[in-house]
Every structure is written in C-alpha cells, then in structure tokens.
C-alpha cells in the first residue's frame, strides 16, 4: 500500500475518494498540519495530496507553491498530488475528484516526483506564497515583520540600557519606551497577525506559526501595558522571546522568501 498524506485544507474530502484509494492500493491518511507529527509521517509516505483550493479566513486559498517549495527542500522524491473538482486543470499530478473511476493504480505510478514535476498551471484561490512575501516584506500596512522588528529594536535598546548601562528604568521608559508607544505597536502586530495567521493554517509553515503565536502570548501583558514593568526587561525574558520569534521568522523567510524578492520593510 502506498501511504498518502491528505491535507484537506479546511474542507471535507469526498468519501468516494477513500474507497477508491483502496482499490488503487493507496492508504489515504487525513493529516492536520498545525502540529509537527506529519513531518515524521512524511518519511514513510509516497505522496502528499492537497485538496485545492483550501479554505481559510473566509477565502479560497492556494498553498500549492508553498508545498512545492517545502517538498523540494525536504523530500524531493515525494509526489505532490492536487485533488480538485476543476476538470479543466490539466497536469500529470492532478486528480479530478469528479472522475475518480478514470484513474488506476498505474496513474499513481506515473505521477511525477517533486524534483521532476512539470510546471503547474495556476490554481484557483489566493496565492499564499505571495501573501507570505507580504507577511515579511510588505511596506506600510502590509508587513507583520516590520512591526515586530520595530518593537524588538526598542526592547533590545531598553534591555541593554537597563542591564549593561544600569540606567534607571524611569529614564529609559520616559526617553525610549514610552515615546515608542509599544502598546499601540503591539496591537498593530496582533491585528496584522490575526489577518495573516489563518491563511497559513494548511501550509507547511502552520506548525511554526503556531509556535510563534504561543510564544508571543507570553509577552502580551507586558506589551499591552506599554512596557511599564522593568522586570521582564531586567531578566531578559521579553527580549529572549522576541529573539526566538525573530529566529523562527527568519527561518521561514530563508526557506520560502529570501533571494526571491527585493523587499523592504521598515
């Protein structure tokens, strides 16, 4: 039996797909990607099947490019199968859910591994690779990282002043933290996060984003209070969390965005 990880993408796969799969010698395993177990499961899998377009944030989404990039880097011999109701979608790895009986076990054999995959035609739905670029690099209202980096800059400066220079926090607060309006910046960050986060729920970066969300919960009270409390700066906990978040974001950026764009965030 060929094991195939099924990413349903906020929708329910038709039951016929499961029954038909058995006839092809394929074991379809519905796989939630918000955790990290699926990465281990992928090792034994023959393919990843995406039910496209996915559904999230009240919109149809296309995570295909992100999955393609992920598999290219992590498992280039695996297949990426796109299952949809779009009969007009022509590709060797496209499974038309309206014509399941037309496929055979041989079709699965003939599917192209990711490192030999023909170029995919556009898939219906918002292209999430483009959204990810905006997540990192968008100017003005778009970039989430821009807001976070401005917060981190202030926290790093304040933390250094407090710990290394032993400047009284009242002075640091009045000269640096308060004018930076961290509370407002943090709200801005949360708002933008809420806009982006659900978009990537069915993508390979979902688990990383979930971890980031958990970590940022830890700084929420301090940020919401505008950074009035010196203690988390003194023990370095705030900066540590922001640095971890930054590190994880950089990892995502390096994997999916860097070198592909000239982007600007301020």
């Amino acid at each position, binding site marked *: 039996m060929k094991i195939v990880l099924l990413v349903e993408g906020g929708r329910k796969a038709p039951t016929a797909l499961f029954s038909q799969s058995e006839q092809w010698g394929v074991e379809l395993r519905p796989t939630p990607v918000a955790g990290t177990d699926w990465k281990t499961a992928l090792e034994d899998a023959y393919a990843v099947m995406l039910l496209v377009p996915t559904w999230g944030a009240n919109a149809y989404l296309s995570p295909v490019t992100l999955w393609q990039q992920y598999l290219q880097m992590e498992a280039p011999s695996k297949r990426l199968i796109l299952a949809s109701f779009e009969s007009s979608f022509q590709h060797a790895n496209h499974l038309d859910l309206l014509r399941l009986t037309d496929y055979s076990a041989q079709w699965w054999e003939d599917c192209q591994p990711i490192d030999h995959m023909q170029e995919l035609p556009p898939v219906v739905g918002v292209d999430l690779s483009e959204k990810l670029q905006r997540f990192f690099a968008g100017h003005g209202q778009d970039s989430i*990282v821009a807001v976070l*980096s401005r917060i981190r*800059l202030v926290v790093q*400066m304040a933390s*250094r002043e407090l710990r290394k220079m032993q400047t009284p926090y009242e002075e640091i607060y009045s000269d640096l933290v308060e004018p*930076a309006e961290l509370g407002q910046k943090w709200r801005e960050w949360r708002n933008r996060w809420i806009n982006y986060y659900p978009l990537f729920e069915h993508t390979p970066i979902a688990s990383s984003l979930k971890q980031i969300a958990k970590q940022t919960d830890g700084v929420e009270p301090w940020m919401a209070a505008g950074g009035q409390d010196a203690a988390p700066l003194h023990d370095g906990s705030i900066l540590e969390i922001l640095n971890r978040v930054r590190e994880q974001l950089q990892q995502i950026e390096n994997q999916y965005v860097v070198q592909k764009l*000239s*982007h*600007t965030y*301020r």
Partner: protein
Amino acid sequence: MSSKNYHILIVDDDTEFHQQIRYAFRRQFLFSGAVNEEQLLQKLGESSNFDLLLLDLVLDESEAKKGLDLIPQIVSQYPELPVIIVTGDRSIDTVVTAMKLGAKNFLVKDDFDFDYWEQRFTEVVEGSKLKQENRELRAEVDRRRAEENEAYPFIGESPQIQEIKRILKLVSEEPDVTVLITGETGTGKEVAARYLHAHGARQKGPFQAVNLSAIQDTLLESTLFGHKKGAFTGASRDMEGYFSQANHGILMLDEIGDIDHNIQIKLLRFLETKLIRPVGSDQDVLLDVQVVTATHRDLAGAVQEGRFRADLFQRLKAMVIELPPLRARRDDIPLLLGHYFQEPDLSRVMTEEALDAMLEYNWIGNVRELKNAVSYAQLRARIQDKKLIDERCLPAEILNSETIIPIPSQPAAASGEPGPSTSTLVTTPKNIDEEHALIDLDRIEKLLIQKNKVKKDVAIAIGLENTDNLRYRIKKHFDKHPHLFANFPTISQSYRRIVKL
C-alpha cells in the same frame, strides 16, 4: 566603547528611528538628522563637520529606493564623508548596488545589535579618517618634496646649463636608466640629480642622496642595503638601508669613485638584477630604484689603475652628464648671487667693486663656495653695520685671488718648525693642473692660518661638506704634485700623514 564623539548625520523618514538611534548611541556619538533628500542636502551644505552618514534607502511613503540615487551624489560631492546604508531591505541585489555606488557598509534595521553597529560606525569613520590622513600626509610629503626641490634650485641660464637641463629632462623620461653625473666639488651634482627627480616619472617617489665618502667603509654595506637584527655587534634591530628607503624613487650615490670592491660588486648586482640582500639576511629584496651616481674622480683612470671595476663603470656610464665648473660659466654668477641674496637687483645688496671681485674670482669650490661666501659677506656686513656689502666684507681669498703663486704664510722660525728651503719652492707652475693645485692649496693654507688650524672651519669656508673631503682634496693635490708640499708649511703640519706619503 568609543568616546570619540564622531558626528553622525542620520537620514531616514522614520523620525522614531532617529530618536531611538540617538538615545542608544548618545554616549558614543553626536547626531544630526534629516528626514528627506532636501533636508539632507541642506544639512550637508550648512556643515562639513559630519564624520558619517547613515542613509535609509526609502525616504518617503513610496517604495522607491531614493537613497540609492543619493549615494553617487554624496560620494562625489563629499568624498571624505563615508556612507553606511541603514535600512530594512536586506536583499542581496540592493546591498551589492549600494556598495558598488560607494556605500561603505550596509546595516539592516531588523538585525540591530548595539555592539555590532557601534563597531561598524567607528570602523568606517576611522577607516575614512585614516584614508583622509593618508591623503593629507601624501600631500604633505609632496609639499615638502617641492620645498626641498625649491631649496636645491638648478640655477643658471648659461648655454652649458641650459643644455644640461634639456638633457636631464630627456633622461627623466627614462625612469630606469642609470645616470652618472661628473664635475668638480660644489658644481651642483646633487642639485642636478634633484632636478632629474623633480621632472621625471619618479617625482612622486622618494629622493635619497648619500655621500659614500662620508660613511665608514665598515658601515657602508649595511647603510646602503640595510641589515637584519643580530647581523653584527650593535645591530639590535632590523634596519632599512638607503636602497629600500629610495624604493620607487631615486637614490643618488655621491662620490661613487670612493667605494671598495665589495660594495662595487653589490652595486653591480643591483643594477643588473634590481635585487639587494640586507646584511645578515638570507633573502633577496626586489626594489624599484633609479640610481644616479656622482663623482669628481676620473673613473676611467680608476678602472685603468684597477681601483674600479670595469663592468660597473660600463653600467654607470649609460648616461653621463658633466657639470661645468662655475668659472666656466661666469655668466651665471649674478643669477646665483641674486638667488642666495634673495635679491635679483644686486646693486641693492653689494657694491660694484664687491660684485666685480666675485665675478673675477675662480671659485674652485664652485657654487657651494659661492653660497658660503654670500653667507660670510652678509654676516660681515651686519657686523660692520653696512647697508651694502663691499670688498671688505668678502672672504679674504676672493680679494687675494690675483695671488696665483702661493707664498709661505709664516716664517719657519716663527712656527718653530723646519721651513722649506726656498730653492724647493715652486713659483712658476708647469701646467694648468699644477696651477690649480697651487691656487687651491694656497687658499687652504691661508684659511688654516686664519681659522687657527680648525679643519672643520676651513672645510666649511671652502664649501666642503666635511673634513674628510678637505683631507681628500689635499691628498689629491699632493698625490699628483708631491713636490708642492714644501710651499705649504701649515698644511704640512696639519696633515703630516698625507704629506709624508
């Protein structure tokens, strides 16, 4: 931590960033700010005291990287102001473009790290200042070199000097040819070499002149080629020689006829290979030095006598320039006097009689003697409180120059030494060379008496650099004309060893 208080101009449309950077680095740097191109140009126009420019690439709400367009303008108009890009854009193409346009460094705001940024700011400022200092030092070296060349002007408009200047200019276009300058002592051999340096391809390089006869034989090799620490007793550190110091420039070796065979071999090796080997080293050093040699000796004669290597002589005489004695170009004397008196109108500094005496004098010490005579006359005029230099201010030998045939200056009985028999005294010279020797020795004899036998003072009065040169000059005359010594009892007493030879 830096405490240099370098003045940094931040250019960023994000005023909050200005405030944060100022706060973070308030102990290390002074800051001024501009939020757009207009303000930037205004600030730069108002003050040239900025040490560093931190430039953001995006300077308004558009995504356009206007900062990139500003870099070439700033670099060309303010070449001493280094630019660091501080931006949110980390893409490689932007970094490469900014650096190619002349930015010194590129910092990404998201990667802010206090220590790293402070280090970069300081490094760039100090690197730029170092370059600026180097430029200033270079300019200072050029200025001093020009001053030095001005201090050794090649004065003369006589046909002989004009021709020599023309030849020197032609030779100066050949930066590798070895030049041999000949001429009597004081004719200006070093001045000619400096003229060659000032007008040639090596004018930006150093000019080193060394009088080989003034250096002890045992020290000559290390003085010329340098030595390694421990090469000999007293060599407590590595030392560069004149050759290394003259790298990319000109080395003038004066009195080349006086060097021994060992140095002759090493000099020949350098001329053939451009390699030297410092004393005590096992490594050759490749140098780019044009060698100019000078001598008042007859090198061809020295070759025939076996005192000078024929192969080295052949090398040295690739280009020979002979400087005429001053007495052969008397037309230049007023020009030289005008130069040394710093007054072209000689009637304002000296009487006609004094000028005539100087024009008629033989100047055996050539230009150097004339220069010393000017200093002497100026001093005498001051002592005698005279506005114009008259004959009484001139050195005695100029006034007595008509005395061709020397007479013993003091009776033998008075000196307590056996005097020469009058029958041995030469009164009529046999040839021009003997006549010159008589004139020269007579002058030295008189000066020895005048200067209480202080040889150093005599050497200076004649225009010689040191007493070795004076001794050499006397010895040269007596070598050629040993029968003359009876005419000069004071010289005989002062230079017994020479006279006894």
